[in-house]
């Protein structure tokens, strides 16, 4: 297991681990950190057909993140390890756009990427690790993301009905679908008859008002 200090992550708590996103440390299962002090954590993992190196490369290509990350409309590379992220909080024409800068803290090709925000409208940090699956078939991709419940999280929760934890889980699901199948499944635009008042309301409870990223299509 790769070794790295926890202090890479600005809000990380002391945990007996070497790689924060990892779920096994010294043979023991490590549960995800608990939410605390206005800080929320989410960890999600997916078994993805593909080798660690190519999945790493797809994730590291931050400019392509809008293809598979919900609400992210643009990522502009601003330096060797920095980028500027913009997110539109809903599909409405008057929706607010929030932006922040992000910095890559650790970058081990085919193994892991760690990042944090360095100013702007969002306080967040995260790590993704790529491990060959024990079966030898595919790669287990594990994401650990933390947020301050600041503007970003609030905007998400209040405006789009997808809390940030679920967004991380959905984004990993989109990433997997795009990597494996070459597209992200979409049904929101399917034809249908009259939804009526209740039907339209319930769409948000199904998460269907959050536009599924296009996967570039």
């Amino acid at each position, binding site marked *: 297991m790769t070794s790295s200090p926890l202090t890479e992550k600005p809000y990380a708590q002391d945990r007996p681990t070497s790689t924060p996103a990892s779920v096994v440390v010294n043979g023991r299962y490590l549960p995800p950190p608990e939410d605390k002090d206005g800080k929320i954590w989410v960890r999600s993992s997916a078994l993805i057909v593909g080798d660690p190196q190519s999945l790493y490369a797809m994730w590291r290509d931050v400019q392509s993140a809008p293809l598979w990350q919900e609400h992210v409309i643009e990522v502009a590379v601003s330096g060797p390890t920095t980028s500027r992220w913009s997110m539109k909080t809903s599909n409405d024409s008057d929706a607010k756009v929030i932006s922040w800068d992000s910095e890559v803290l650790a970058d081990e090709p085919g193994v892991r990427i760690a990042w944090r925000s360095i100013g702007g409208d969002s306080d967040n940090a995260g790590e993704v690790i790529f491990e060959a699956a024990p079966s030898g078939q595919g790669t287990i991709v594990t994401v650990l993301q933390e947020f301050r419940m600041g503007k970003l999280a609030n905007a998400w929760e209040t405006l789009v009905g997808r809390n940030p934890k679920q967004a991380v889980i959905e984004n990993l699901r989109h990433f997997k679908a795009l990597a494996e199948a070459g597209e*992200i499944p979409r049904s*929101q635009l399917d034809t249908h008859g009259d939804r009526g008042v209740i039907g339209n309301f319930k769409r948000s409870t199904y998460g269907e008002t959050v536009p599924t990223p296009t*996967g570039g299509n």
Partner: protein
Amino acid sequence: MKAVCWMGKSNMETRTVPDPELINPHDAIIKVTRTAICGSDLHLYDGFIPTMESGDIMGHEFMGLVEEVGPEVTNLKRGDRVVVPFTIACGSCIFCKKKYWAACDNTNPNAHLMEKAYGYSGAGLFGYSHMMGGYAGGQAQYVRVPFANVGPLKIESDLGDEKVLFLSDIFPTGYMAAENAQIQPGDTVAVWGCGPVGQFAIASAFMLGAARVIAIDRFQERLDLARSLGAITVDYSEEDVSVLTALKDLTGGVGPDSCIDAVGLEAHSNELQGIYDVVKTALFMETDRPSVLRQAIQAVRKGGTLSIPGVYGGLLDKVPFGAAFGKGITMKMGQTNMHNYMKPLLERVEKGQIDPSYIISHRITLDQAPEMYKIWRDKEERVTKIVIDPWA
């Protein structure tokens, strides 16, 4: 175009809706030439499957002509004649590679809803609730088919639509039920429910070597069809008939080697447990009425196999798990891994080994569909299978 829309419990309407359009690169638009009402559609009609919404287009058994394909569909072209499987599979994930197509990881856009209820999500399905993907179904003049490079089976021969339509669900589903029953040559197999899936399970059980098939139902038209396949029939609605006693009598007291529950969550029973389940589901204290499941667990012989193609949705009461454990039975179940069976079963149809159209009792138009849902649900007019011509 015209489409059959779910507009609430016990309320279908044929409406004019926008035509489907290509959305993703592996999509195809199919002009539907024949579609059917599935017994499992009645669970939607009766409001047993959550997350149906007004305006949802019904239907997961359909075939037709390719109208248009997305840029990454390389195996189909406009004009091809195809049967489309009801489960949507990506062909690329771990589960598709293991041939568990119904467990595909990548085709349910609303997988998070399934995860909450079931732990994990299976494949997306056509026209079968938002939990199962929110895809528009095929009881319509046109339908969008995602991952058209993986699912649709091309029909190259001039076999009529009615002979191949049921490769979209019920024939493979009945066949997989028989396969899941782990039939050995000479076995006795009991099949609960002689609707379309039960019919194909009976036919398939014989194909797989069963020496005797016992078919259980209460409708003469279905029992007649079962006997036409060579099954021995038990009408559980007849006075003095106990299914468990009948199955013992017909197996020398041993019980059937395999039992197939082709009924599922809306089982009827003339025993006390039938009233119990009706009351509990009405009070939302139970989601399913598992009286066939209970009976099949009781009936199967020691070390036997229980195969469950009938749909279950939620939480079941009073399932005799002690009996299942005590006899050491095997249970196999689940949505059909369609893609494994369509081609081999098409070959059987082409060779004339079976003509699946024998179960059709009604041929209707889209406009007649809402009423036929009611007629079939209420078991009137001796319905065995309803096929729709969307252009009639």
